[in-house]
């Protein structure tokens, strides 16, 4: 039982890393327009598939966690989501004032901010429950 919980946790981390390993090269290839449009579309789909698998594994791992760890993950996602919603809202309102910096707040960076905010929430929640 404990072994399978560990395996599920490890699987979700492994698929998060696989997603990272497909996302970064895909972003680089698409940015530098190495291939034609049909191939580029296929390349763009690959990180989406790996992310879907990661989400599936994460949800499976979440349901196998004990209730304290579930609470930590839940709060991490809530804090992460709230912060990213706040950032998007601020960026939208600032863009209406003609203040925007796509160099720092483009779509690619927003993905990084999502992860960053999730980890901020995770650390806050871990400290709160002393896990």
């Amino acid at each position, binding site marked *: 039982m404990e072994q399978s919980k560990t395996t599920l946790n490890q699987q979700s981390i492994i698929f998060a890393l696989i997603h990272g390993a497909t996302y970064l090269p895909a972003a680089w290839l698409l940015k530098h327009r190495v291939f034609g449009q049909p191939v580029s579309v296929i390349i763009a789909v690959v990180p989406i598939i790996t992310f879907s698998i990661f989400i599936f594994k994460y949800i499976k791992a979440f349901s196998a966690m004990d*209730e*304290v*760890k579930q609470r930590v993950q839940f709060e991490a996602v809530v804090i992460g989501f709230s912060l990213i919603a706040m950032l998007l809202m601020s960026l939208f309102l600032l863009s209406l004032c003609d203040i925007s910096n796509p160099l720092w707040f483009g779509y690619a960076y927003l993905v990084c901010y999502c992860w960053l905010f999730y980890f901020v929430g995770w650390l806050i929640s871990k400290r*709160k*429950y*002393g896990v």
Partner: protein
Amino acid sequence: MKNTIKVERAKKNWTQADLAKHIGISRQGLNSIETGKFIPSTLLALRMAKVFNTTVEILFQLDDIEE
């Protein structure tokens, strides 16, 4: 909410890891419950009471302020 998990654990001479294994949670999770940082679900509280052969009311009590 206060609890007597530590006392009950000492009676059985169990470590946190032993109790955690008996009730099916992680040792860190149990530590969080024992120190009052996390309030367990009814199911977990009942499981804990069962392994200690006691009642949930003995294991968990409301603080004086909460009462």
